[in-house]
């Protein structure tokens, strides 16, 4: 019986909401209770965007993640805003290509990955979100590996089916990343 609260934050356009939806679907396909709540304010139009995802074996109470077990910060403002909200023992994942300072907390586990640089170098532009997600799965097992493909099939729309493999490949880059 467990509940995992995830907060994904970054710039609008980085695929924050998509990454959250992928995670939520993976949980749903496992038969778990899930919720996905996006920020929908003016921040979506160019500023910071964030997305609360909860995966739970029991009923989900509040869908708002205020104290994330897993924080995924895709830019510096997001790290600044949420770093201190992660409970002791929690995990912080940062896109170290865009976050140019180390995490200050010493009571949490920190997993940096230069996701944006990797995405550009390996030809997966705009898929830094999935590279990060792979890194998260590798270190937290928040969802089992076998849920990756079925969940991705749910969130990549039929219209963009050609992007399915691309997303999975990007995710695998993060999954197999060695610092």
């Amino acid at each position, binding site marked *: 019986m467990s509940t995992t609260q995830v907060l994904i934050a970054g710039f609008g356009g980085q695929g924050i909401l998509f990454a959250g*939806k992928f995670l939520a679907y993976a949980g749903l396909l496992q038969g778990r*209770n899930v919720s996905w*709540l996006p920020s*929908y304010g003016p921040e979506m139009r160019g500023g910071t965007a964030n997305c609360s995802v909860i995966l739970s074996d029991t009923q989900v109470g509040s869908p708002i993640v205020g104290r994330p077990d897993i924080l995924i910060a895709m830019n510096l403002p997001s790290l600044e805003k949420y770093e201190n909200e992660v409970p002791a023992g929690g995990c912080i994942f940062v896109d170290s290509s865009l976050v140019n300072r180390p995490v200050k907390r010493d009571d949490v586990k920190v997993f940096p990955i230069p996701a944006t640089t990797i995405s550009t170098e390996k030809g997966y532009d705009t898929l830094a979100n999935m590279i990060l997600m792979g890194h998260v799965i590798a270190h937290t097992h928040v969802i089992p590996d076998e849920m990756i493909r079925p969940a991705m099939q749910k969130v990549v729309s039929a219209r963009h089916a050609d992007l399915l493999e691309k997303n999975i490949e990007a995710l695998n880059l993060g999954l197999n990343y060695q610092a």
Partner: protein
Amino acid sequence: MAEKILMKGNEALAEAAIMAGCRHYFGYPITPQTEVAAYMAKRMPRIGGTFLQAESEIAAINMVIGAAAAGKRSMTSSSSPGISLKSEGISYMAGCDLPGLIVNVQRGGPGLGGIQPSQSDYFQATRGGGHGDYHLLVLAPNSVQEMADLVFKGFDMSEKYRIPCMLLADGTMGQMMEPVALPERSAETIDKPWALTGTEGKRKPNIINSLALAPHELEEWNLERFKRYDIIRETEQMSESYLMDDAEICVVAFGIAARVSQNAVDTARAMGIKAGMIRPITLWPFPEKALKTAADQCKAFVSVELNMGQMIEDVKLSIECCKPVSLCCRTGGMIPTPDEVVAAIVKANEGGKQA
């Protein structure tokens, strides 16, 4: 039940309305409910229904009046400032005894306010909103599943009693995604002998009107309507109890406030406080009976709301002020944290009154 899929609350309610037989949607965009209109724009033309983006909220509600008068299941949706604009039309619907569904995905006010979630239209919804002596049926979902389920309930009740129904949601309910199993049931068909469907020369014309210049006639209409309200108060109160069996502190919350409060009740229980929650699902009729029963057993009540204290009046009225009722609230689009609700529960348990 159908396979569970992830849907936004706004989309789930729109699809549920279509499944419930609604083929006439009239709307006007406003955050945070625009997905309802977007969904209807996509779906209605494919199933022979009508999606119409009106020139204003006022036009949209008057189109609902027209479709409802013709006996069609129809609806409109908006968010707080847009509902204020619709209020004149809603009063006319009440006066004409027309059914229909009005969705309010609330945002902070007053005035243009903000776009973040709020419950500050509680008074407006439960007291009628427009002018005159009337009530709406008011349903308050607290999950995406209920966003869908209560649409069916709302249409059915609205037509059964010929009273407009308001689905009172908020920005989080509209925007969040949760697994939802859309109900596998067809629309309930309710006979509408009063509808304006054409006489074909076989019956006297029906008249749908809210104008009665003779005061005794208008009083008669109103008294007849209030007889229906009495039946609704007696038979349609809905609420959900959470850990109430041995509760000494009763939290009362609906919608997103109830989701937050559920966490707080769990935390309070872990601290050894016997806390429970009553979640109104119908805000009108307010679940007075459940509250009254709880008052026999609980030593204090905490009303948790996303406004400056509106439902708290109904809580006090329901229990006839026989126990202390404190308020835990945020306003303007802010949502109380579970910790803030826990603090209010602790204070109520200690016997102090929340300022």
